[in-house]
C-alpha cells in the first residue's frame, strides 16, 4: 500500500497587497516539478470516485498518471477526449465541490489538486503550440447560437466530427461570459482567445454582431441550410431587487459593471472610450462567484472601501471557496445576514447611501433547499456608499420565446429539453444557462458536448 502524502503542493500566487494593484492572474500555476510531485500523491484508486464527480467525466486518474510519467502530451490528450476547453475549466471549475470533493486522499488530508494539474497540462500544451486532430469533413452544417462555454464546447465537438459549424454571437467579441463576465485576474482573455483560435483552426466559422431572434430567427437558420441548431445563449437578463432607489446613478447590475470593465475596458478610460463610475465606498450585493468577481474588480480600481452584502452566512455562500478566500484576503469586508432595503440618492440622482436590515436564518428551507431568511425588525442601519453592484443572479432573456414559434419554455423562461438536450422543435437543441439557470462553465460545456453527440445522431438518422 502506497503511503499517503497528506499535504498538497501549494500553488504560488501573487500576494494580496500586490495583486490588488493589477489585473494579472492571481495563481501562477504549477511548474513541471510541482505538478509531478502533486500528481504522485494520487492513489490511482480502482473505483475512481473523482471521475463520477466530474460533470464531463474526464479520466482523471489516467491523465494524472501520465503526468507522473512526464508524458504531458498523452495527459492533455486524455483530457481532450471529454473536455474541449481545459485551460478554462482548469481555472474556473469549482473542483472542491466536484472531482476533488470525492477524492479518497481528501478524507485524510488535502485532496489531490486535480484542477491545478488540469491547468498545468492545458497550459503546457498552449505554450507548446496547439495540435489539431485530423478531421474528416462532412457536408452537413450546424448553427450554434452563442459563443459562451456551451456553444464553444458544442462547436469543438461538432468540428471534430467533421460538420461545418457556424457560431453566431450577438456581441462584437467572442466568448460570452468568459469574455464579458469573468475578470482577467481569474481567466486571462488570452487563454479564451487561444481556445477560440483552436476552434478556428479546426474550421469553425464565427459571426459576431448577429442576434438570433432579431437579425435572424431560428427558422431563418434552417432556411440558410443548417441541418441542426444548438442554442447556448446563456442566462440573459440581470435581476434587480425592486427596492426604492435602484435606478440611482452609481448602481450597476454585475453584468453591466463587468461588461464595461472586461469587454469594453472601461478601466482604461482615456485609451478606451467606454466610461465606468468608480466610487469612494462601494458595495456589492450577492454571494455568488459573480459577486466575488465584481467585488474583487472594484478593489483593484481604487475605492477606499468595498463591502459585500449577503443575506445569509458564509456557510450558505454559493461562491467557490477559493474566490471567497481571495476576496477576504484582498480586503473586502463581508456583511453577513444583511439585506439592502432601499438606496438613498443626492439631489443629482446619485447614490449616497444604502439602508440595510439585519437578517436571521429560519429553520424552514426554500425551494432551492437553503434556509429561508427573515428580516429582524428595528435592525435597520445606513451604510454610506456611492457605488453599488447588484449581483443577485439572472433570468432568461425572453427574446427567443417571443420570436420562435413552437419552441417550448418552462414557466421561468428557460428552454425545455430532454436528457439529450433536445428541445420541442425538431433539429433544435439547447444547453447551458438558458436550460439550467445560473450554473457553472463546466456544466454548460458538458451540455454542449452532449448536445453535439445528440446532433450527430439526429443528422445521421434523419431521412433525406
Amino acid at each position: 500500500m502506497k503511503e499517503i502524502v497528506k499535504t498538497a503542493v501549494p500553488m504560488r500566487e501573487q500576494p494580496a497587497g500586490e495583486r490588488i494593484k493589477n489585473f494579472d492572474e492571481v495563481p501562477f500555476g504549477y511548474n513541471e516539478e510541482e505538478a509531478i510531485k502533486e500528481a504522485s500523491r494520487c492513489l490511482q484508486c480502482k473505483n475512481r470516485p473523482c471521475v463520477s464527480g466530474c460533470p464531463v467525466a474526464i479520466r482523471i486518474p489516467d491523465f494524472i498518471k501520465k503526468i507522473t510519467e512526464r508524458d504531458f502530451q498523452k495527459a492533455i490528450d486524455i483530457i481532450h477526449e471529454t473536455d474541449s476547453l481545459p485551460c478554462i475549466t482548469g481555472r474556473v471549475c469549482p473542483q472542491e465541490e466536484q472531482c476533488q470533493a470525492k477524492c479518497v486522499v481528501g478524507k485524510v488530508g488535502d485532496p489531490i489538486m486535480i484542477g491545478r494539474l488540469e491547468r498545468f497540462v492545458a497550459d503546457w500544451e498552449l505554450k507548446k503550440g496547439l495540435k489539431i486532430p485530423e478531421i474528416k469533413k462532412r457536408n452537413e452544417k450546424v448553427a450554434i447560437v452563442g459563443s459562451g462555454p456551451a456553444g464553444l464546447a458544442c462547436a469543438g465537438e461538432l468540428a471534430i466530427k467533421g460538420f461545418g459549424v457556424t457560431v453566431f454571437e450577438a456581441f462584437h467579441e467572442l466568448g460570452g461570459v468568459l469574455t464579458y463576465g469573468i475578470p482577467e485576474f481569474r481567466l486571462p482573455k488570452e487563454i479564451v482567445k487561444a481556445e477560440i483560435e483552436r476552434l478556428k483552426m479546426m474550421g469553425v466559422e464565427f459571426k459576431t454582431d448577429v442576434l438570433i431572434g432579431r437579425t435572424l430567427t431560428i427558422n431563418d437558420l434552417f432556411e440558410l441550410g443548417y441541418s441542426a441548431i444548438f442554442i447556448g445563449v446563456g442566462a440573459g437578463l440581470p435581476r434587480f431587487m425592486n427596492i426604492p432607489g435602484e435606478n440611482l446613478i452609481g448602481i450597476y447590475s454585475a453584468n453591466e459593471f463587468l461588461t464595461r470593465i472586461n469587454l469594453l475596458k472601461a478601466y482604461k478610460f482615456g485609451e478606451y472610450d467606454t466610461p465606468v463610475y468608480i466610487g469612494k465606498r462601494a458595495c456589492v450585493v450577492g454571494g455568488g462567484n459573480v459577486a466575488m468577481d465584481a467585488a474583487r474588480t472594484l478593489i483593484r480600481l481604487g475605492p477606499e472601501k468595498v463591502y459585500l452584502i449577503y443575506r445569509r452566512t458564509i456557510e450558505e455562500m454559493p461562491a467557490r471557496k477559493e474566490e471567497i478566500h481571495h476576496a477576504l484576503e484582498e480586503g473586502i469586508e463581508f456583511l453577513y445576514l444583511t439585506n439592502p432595503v432601499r438606496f438613498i440618492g443626492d439631489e443629482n440622482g446619485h447614490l449616497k447611501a444604502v439602508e440595510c436590515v439585519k437578517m436571521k436564518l429560519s429553520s424552514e428551507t426554500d425551494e432551492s433547499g437553503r434556509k429561508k431568511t427573515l428580516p429582524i425588525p428595528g435592525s435597520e442601519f445606513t451604510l454610506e456608499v456611492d457605488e453599488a453592484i447588484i449581483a443577485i443572479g439572472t433570468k432568461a432573456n425572453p427574446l427567443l420565446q417571443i420570436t420562435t414559434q413552437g419552441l417550448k419554455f418552462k414557466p421561468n423562461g428557460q428552454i425545455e429539453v430532454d436528457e439529450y438536450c433536445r428541445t420541442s422543435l425538431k433539429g433544435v437543441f439547447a444547453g447551458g444557462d438558458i436550460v439550467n439557470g445560473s450554473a457553472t462553465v463546466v456544466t454548460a460545456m458538458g451540455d454542449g458536448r452532449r448536445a453535439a453527440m445528440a446532433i450527430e445522431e439526429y443528422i445521421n438518422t434523419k431521412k433525406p
Partner: protein
Amino acid sequence: MSAKIVKMEELAKDIFCYEVETPLIANKAKAGQFVILRIHQKGERIPLTIADFDREKGTITMVFQVLGKTTLLLSRLRENDHILNILGPQGNPSEIKDFGHVAVVGGGVGIAAIHPILKALKEKNNKITSIIGYRSKELVFWEDKIKAQSHEVLVYTNDGSYGKAGLVTDGLKEVISREKIDRVIAVGPLVMMDAVTKVTKEYNIPTIVSLNSLMVCGMGMCGACRVTINGKIKFTCMDGPEFNAFAVDFDELKKRLNSYKEEEKICYKKELEKC
C-alpha cells in the same frame, strides 16, 4: 458584422445622414427599431435609430448629430468606409395600426426617427399631422421627407428663424384645439417628450414616447438602459424603446442621461484637440 457606408450627407450643421449596406438588418428592420454600433477597436457601443431602410438595396439609413467623441469619429467616416460593428435591428417595432388621426411630434434628430413611423402609419391609412421642431433655421433637415408622409406638417423653430416661432408643444396644443387626435407619438429630446406628455395628459390622449436611454449591450443583458415605467424597472432595449408616455418616470431618466456627462466632455475635448 461591419457595414459599408454607401452614401453620406451633411444634412445641417453637425447633423449627418449615412446610408449603410447591411442586408441582414435591412431585411428585418421595422419602424421604431434601432442599431448598436461601434466604430473602432477601443470604441464604445452606441444606439442609433433606424431612420429609413431599403430591403431591395439591403441598406439602412441613420441620422445623427455630433454630440461626443463617438459621433465625431463617425462623422469623419466617408463613403466606402466601414462601420466596424453594427448589431440590429434592436428593440420592439412601433405598434402600427389604423388609429384614426395621429399627431406625430419630432424634435431635433428625433425628426429622422419619426420618418419610418410616419411611413408605416400612412400605409395603415391613418390621418397624420406632423409637428416638427428645430432649434433654428440652419438645423432644419428632412422637412420634405416628413411632408411626403404626412397630411399636414407644422414646422417650428425655437428662435423663429424658420417656420413658426415656438415649441412643438405650441403646435400640438393648436392641433388639439381644432381637431380630434386619437394618438400622439413623440420622439426627440427627453425634455420635449416630457413636455408633450404633460400636454396630452391634460387631454387624456394616448401617447407613445421613444426613450433615448444610455445603452451598453442593447440586448437585455446589462440593464444600463433601465427606466421606471409605472413604478417598475423596465429595459429600454428589450421592453421598449417605445413606452406609454404616462407611465414613464421622466425626471429619473433625465438624471440618468447625465451619468457620464464629465467623461463625455473630456473624451470629446481630447478628440477635438487632436486635429
